[in-house]
């Protein structure tokens, strides 16, 4: 059962102040309405994983790591590797996260990131086949939220793509139907660098990259993942409220522009990572 969430109360004064500022085109932390927070990316944070990245977007802090294995392919895609995205909202990160089985929020986050990577074809799954129908690489992308200050979606996409971009896979030699792990590695090549752009809506105003207080005060959010070629590969409205068709279409151009900008910052370290 999905149940109306009980958002932590942010004081009425805080909310009024937030709206007052928005009416003037300003935000509580001094940012412009369409300005992202500082973004910091640290590659290969977990040396023992095959790929990893620690991403800080303002105070939001997310660790993504990739574990590589060998698995039986799915019956309907015998020539394709397996990609699984999982997100853990560990209780260390926020008083609103609780230990236990994945919440709908963590499932929805993981599924959105999965769609962003899968549909953008950032990872060419057909290049991850070892023996068709028998042995393929499996990539487990685990997202670990360490500190929660809003906009998990955009930060998670950036963390996942960076972690995949640093991933090294062991080579296998094939003898008949059996495989043998070699002591050589090859780099996973990314075919696209998708970024997600998230907007939070307040009446007729909206901002990009909401911090937690903005998320709590907002009516709903919309996230859009843009590929390197400016096409879209995932969209998701989260929360109640409604948007007019015109309001929605207006976001498309904005996302393309913001996407270009964010992409150049978010993945700047990947080129240097060998």
């Amino acid at each position: 059962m999905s149940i109306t969430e009980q958002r932590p109360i942010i004081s009425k004064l805080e909310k009024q102040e937030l709206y007052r500022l928005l009416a003037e085109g300003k935000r509580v932390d001094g940012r412009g309405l369409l300005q992202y927070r500082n973004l910091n990316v640290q590659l290969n944070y977990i040396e023992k994983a095959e790929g990893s990245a620690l991403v800080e977007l303002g105070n939001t802090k997310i660790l993504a790591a990739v574990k590589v294995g060998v698995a039986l392919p799915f019956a309907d895609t015998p020539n394709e590797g397996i990609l699984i995205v999982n997100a853990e909202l560990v209780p260390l990160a926020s008083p609103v996260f609780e230990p236990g089985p994945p919440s709908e929020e963590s499932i929805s986050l993981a599924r959105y990131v999965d769609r962003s990577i899968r549909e953008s074809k950032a990872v060419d799954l057909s290049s991850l086949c070892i023996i068709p129908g028998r042995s393929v690489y499996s990539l487990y992308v685990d997202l670990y939220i360490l500190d929660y200050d809003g906009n998990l979606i955009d930060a998670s996409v950036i963390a996942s793509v960076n972690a995949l971009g640093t991933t090294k896979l062991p080579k296998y030699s094939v003898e008949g139907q059996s495989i043998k792990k070699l002591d050589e590695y090859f780099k996973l090549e990314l075919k696209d660098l998708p970024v997600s752009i998230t907007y939070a809506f307040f009446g007729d105003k909206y901002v990009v990259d909401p911090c937690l207080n903005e998320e709590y005060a907002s009516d709903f959010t919309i996230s859009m993942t843009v590929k390197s070629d400016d096409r879209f590969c995932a969209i998701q409205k989260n929360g109640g409220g409604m948007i007019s068709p015109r309001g929605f279409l207006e976001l498309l151009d904005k996302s393309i522009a913001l996407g270009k900008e964010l992409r150049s910052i978010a993945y700047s370290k990947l080129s240097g990572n060998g």
Partner: protein
Amino acid sequence: MSEKISLFKEDGRRLDDRAPDELRPIKIKVGVLSNAQGSAYIEQGKNKILAAVYGPKEALPKHISLPDRCILRCRYHMAPFSTPERKSPAPSRREIELSMVIRNALEPLVMTSLFPRTVIDIFIEVLQADGGTRCAGLTAAVLALADAGIPLKGLTAACAVGKADGKVIVDLNDLEDKYGEADMPIAYNPTLDGITLLQMDGIMSKEEIEQALSLAITATQKIHKMQVEALKERFSVPRREG
């Protein structure tokens, strides 16, 4: 979206003989269950979906209740026999996500402040799935709410749009969903001119999204009319028989 199969016939019509902007046959009936406060049944293509509403009723345990409005609980669930391979009855990650996006789409529709400290339960059971179940389920759930006498800000209808073989199309069936290039489920309330459910999956350019959205609005307006008709039928004075 893996193999390459053609989703259009030589005459430009879809494999089930529809035009790109044509809905599948839709059959809606309101008030089909005896225990639920409100219920509705929808067939859209081969989709067969039931929705039921219980409430408003006391929210238990109390700590889930809200002092100023009622809360909604929503469960989208697929019957084990609704899919080609038998599905476990335990909720999948997909069902958990869809329960949430459907609830989100219903929240702005219900006049929740009329019923503080209560809960409304919304159950959607997909008996047979044929693509677009979240949209058809939502269309039915809205009617189940109306049937339960819960004050709504108008009716919301939902329909997926998307892209197959490079063409923008409306109301994707199972095949088009699986082998097409993009799927964009949309719920639209024509009274309020508001989109309440919006997802996209696959690849579309800005122009294609604009075109698809326009198709979605026309389609949901058509479905909205069928919703109104179904409610009229439900509440019409029954004629004396015989």
